[in-house]
């Protein structure tokens, strides 16, 4: 399907502001073929109805992406109704893996919206340059870089307040650009108390606090040789997860990279970038603040990943090609210590991720072949070799009880191929694509030990004997673009073989207090996921934008039972008024009743809902300073609702009034 690029607005980086502001809206609509929303920083602070919202709320607006929500913070992105195991989430191509066995810390939770320039959404198997072990697609979070420009210093200050949850945002960013050197650095702080759902229902343990500091720098060694580096340090503390039985004391991420890029190497090779990276994630859960905890537990986790990639891009005749090699090494280690009710007994200890090591090396090739002005073909393939296993002998002995013939380490060969054909007609565009690919089981699926899933109330045990999961994908997209409107219909179908999912196994005994049973990861012979959507955009009365989305998905196991966490029919429609200084909009969004749900996985029928949001913003110019004020009301009618993706049906935010202020000081 399309590699839709959604460029999100970020408060920092004034350097593009004047340029961006001069862009007319009609140009924007033309770009809708590949780009859903475009514009940089300054422009977006007008266009985004809520410019200082957290990254979770941004992700929610991306096409084909919908997050699974376990609280007020750290939502888990899904692409094409596939979650962490089946998608890749990378930061500027860097592989980062979460450190929490219960998915409380998706990769996106370790960055701040201010760190990013845009998020590229890859759908399905095609053209996912950085996507290891991904079938459903991927998110590549592109870092915000000040870039090489004429000498300029800019300082941006941000603050925002939301009434619901007493949510405060403070941030500052400093950027310096020159023709041969740039640096941008900043800090962001967010703190929210418990939020309140519709009908004044307080959602306990939905608070969070987060600090993010980051720095990017670039240096031109020569005109076409660039050295760049990034450091991000992100700490979330006291994060509540109302849908889970535990909260988080601290979630820390240190993300570093250094890269070397050479541009305009020859007529054939346009750029060659090599990046070395390392990141260290630590995650400490906390149940000490919960009332009536039957058994207190310590559940620390850590994930460390080091790797590199080297990507060569070029053009030969009608071929635009990409060649890449990437390798990463990950350590995922998590343990659980349970303190017995009977205090005369010693604490109970086990590894839930028994020091799982993964070494993955891949080669990737992509060719965009322009047959003629009306027809292009994109071919891509990835081949990777993965070695993984348990570095902990303790953990190996543990899992070997369940799988006596398992080996401590194993090798897997993985790969994918995809092809996409695009045909351009007058005002119309047709895309047809297909692909086939495989993925290795995730650390949890292969080696996780007694991981409790509060959604279905089962303990989950990994299975090192799992086969690779594979999928064939077919997709189609048809777009009509006219000066005043555009409409796109798209659909994708994934047919899985050896689909990995946990199934109850009554021969094993539960460990978690009150758990219903034990599930073990298995390969289902087949499963399928179908997604389709329509997006329409209309420009009327010069400054009014009317945007509507409809989406429908269907996910089935081989016995036609529904897969869990598949979106029901959903819709949104919004009308926004935009001119240079002033913007405002109203938005209606909702979903029908979830007819297809999976009781086996703890789902129930989520009722239909709709909510209404409204916002308004204004830019004030004060000599050299530009002030952007934005305010709005979300969920105006204070409806109590939850979506299919709300873990254990925790309700979403009730009425919320927000106010954000961005000042470009320099």
């Amino acid at each position: 399907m399309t590699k839709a690029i959604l460029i999100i607005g970020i408060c920092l980086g004034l350097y593009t502001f004047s340029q961006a502001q001069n862009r007319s809206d009609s140009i924007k609509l033309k770009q809708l073929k590949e780009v859903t929303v475009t514009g940089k920083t300054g422009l977006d602070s007008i266009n985004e109805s809520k410019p200082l919202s957290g990254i979770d709320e941004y992700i929610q607006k991306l096409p084909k992406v919908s997050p699974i929500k376990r609280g007020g913070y750290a939502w888990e992105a899904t692409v094409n109704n596939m979650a962490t195991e089946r998608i890749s989430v990378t930061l500027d191509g860097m592989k980062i893996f979460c450190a929490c066995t219960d998915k409380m810390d998706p990769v996106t939770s370790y960055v701040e919206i201010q760190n990013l320039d845009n998020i590229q959404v890859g759908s399905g198997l095609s053209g996912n340059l950085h996507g290891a072990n991904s079938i459903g697609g991927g998110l590549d979070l592109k870092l915000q870089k000040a870039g090489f420009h004429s000498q300029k210093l800019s300082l941006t200050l941000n603050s925002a307040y939301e009434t619901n949850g007493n949510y405060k945002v403070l941030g500052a960013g400093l950027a310096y650009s020159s023709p041969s050197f740039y640096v941008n650095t900043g800090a962001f702080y967010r703190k929210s108390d418990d939020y309140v759902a519709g009908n004044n229902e307080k959602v306990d343990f939905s608070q969070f606090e987060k600090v993010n500091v980051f720095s990017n720098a670039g240096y031109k060694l020569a005109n076409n040789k660039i050295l760049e580096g990034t450091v991000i340090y992100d700490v979330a503390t006291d994060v509540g997860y109302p849908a889970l039985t535990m909260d988080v004391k601290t979630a820390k991420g240190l993300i570093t990279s250094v890269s070397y890029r050479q541009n305009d190497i020859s007529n054939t090779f346009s750029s060659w970038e090599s990046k070395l990276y390392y990141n260290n994630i630590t995650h400490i859960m906390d149940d000490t603040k919960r009332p009536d905890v039957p058994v207190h537990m310590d559940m620390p986790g850590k994930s460390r990943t080091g790797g590199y990639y080297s990507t060569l891009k070029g053009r030969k005749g009608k071929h635009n090609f990409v060649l890449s090699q990437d390798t990463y090494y990950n350590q995922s280690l998590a343990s659980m210590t349970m303190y017995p009710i009977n205090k005369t007994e010693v604490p109970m200890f086990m590894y839930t991720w028994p020091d799982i090591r993964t070494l993955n090396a891949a080669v990737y090739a992509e060719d965009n072949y322009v047959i003629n002005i009306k027809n292009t073909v994109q071919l891509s393939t990835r081949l990777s070799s993965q070695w993984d296993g348990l570095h902990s002998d303790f953990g190996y002995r543990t899992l070997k009880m369940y799988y006596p013939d398992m080996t401590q380490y194993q090798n897997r060969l993985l790969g994918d191929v995809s092809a996409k054909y695009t045909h351009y007609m007058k005002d119309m565009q047709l895309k047809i694509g297909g692909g086939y690919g495989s993925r290795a089981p995730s650390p949890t699926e292969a080696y996780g030990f007694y991981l409790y899933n509060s959604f279905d109330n089962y303990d989950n045990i990994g299975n090192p004997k799992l086969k690779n999961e594979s999928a064939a994908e077919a997709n189609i997209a048809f777009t009509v673009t006219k000066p005043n409107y555009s409409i796109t219909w798209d659909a994708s179908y994934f047919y899985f073989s050896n689909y990995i999912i946990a199934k109850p196994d009554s021969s094993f005994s539960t460990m978690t207090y009150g758990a219903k049973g034990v599930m073990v990861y298995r390969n289902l012979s087949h499963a399928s996921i179908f997604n389709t959507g329509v997006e329409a955009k209309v420009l009327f009365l010069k400054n009014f934008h009317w945007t509507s989305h409809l989406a429908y998905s269907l996910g089935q196991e081989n016995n036609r039972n529904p897969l869990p966490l598949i979106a029901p029919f959903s819709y949104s429609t919004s009308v926004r008024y935009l001119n240079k200084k002033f913007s405002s909009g109203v938005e209606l969004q909702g979903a029908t009743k979830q007819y297809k749900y999976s009781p086996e996985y703890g789902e129930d029928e989520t009722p239909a809902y709709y909510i209404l949001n409204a916002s308004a913003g204004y830019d004030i110019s004060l000599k050299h300073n530009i002030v952007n004020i934005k305010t709005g009301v979300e969920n105006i009618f204070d409806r109590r609702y939850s979506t299919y993706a709300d873990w254990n049906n925790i309700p979403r935010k009730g009425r919320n009034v927000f106010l954000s202020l961005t000042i470009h000081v320099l």
Partner: protein
Amino acid sequence: MKFKIDNIKHIFFLIIALVLLLASCGKEEVKVSTSATEVIGLYKVDSLKKGDYTFYVFKKDTGYFKVGYNEIYIQLKNNTTGKYIEDANLSWKALMHMTDMSHACPYSAISKVANTKTLYKGYFIFIMGSDDMDYWEITYDYVKGTDTLAEVTNRPYVVNPTGRLRYKRFLGSDAAYYYAVLVNPTELNVQVGTNDITAYLYKQVDMYTFNPVKNYTIEIDPRMPDPSMGNHTSPYNVNLKYDSSADIYKGKLNLTMTGYWKINLIVKNSANTVIKGDSIKGSTTASSLYFEIEF
């Protein structure tokens, strides 16, 4: 350039030398077995001198006797010659003295430890601890022909340091008294994962006589009885069967995590009749016969 090649040569030879050095280190040195080396790693429990001879008593796990199974090592020294006796015929017995009665306990004969010159071993299964009123008396004998060359008696303290149950006396359905005794895993070698479990089963004939029971089975069902754990158990345990070559019951015990485990037991005779114990189902959450392991 020449300089560089020389350097490389040097490095090359250095590496070869290192490899050779490491290889030679790896070779096992020829062990000379002596009275001193044979007790390396053992804890001394007692030195008992009587006349010309001294009995040295050792254990592998602790420097004291514990209730339940005790694997005991002995060396015997001739104090006159200073030499250790290499072909001693040793025997022993244990007696519990209580205020109004006395009794013995199950124990093995003493045999020479294979591949040693001076070391002998056997086991006692102390079926109660000692205190100020009740004490164990152990007598060690060195006999040659019909002559007792040395006999020494002492009163070691027998304790239960963990408070956990590693042996159990029970009345079987055949109206006989039995002792089930956990030998392995010990507190020292128990691990998460699969453990070799071994046990002895003794039938009490009278207060002083205990006979090993052969060809029964001991079924195991390990559980974590802490209220927080929902009586969690582990999969694929292997019941203990009698191994006639080692005269002990052997099975496989799986433990999924550290902590307090109750190893519930069902003892069945060779006709598969339950002698003692209950299977865990329904409202029965524990067997009347069990061992305890905590680590």
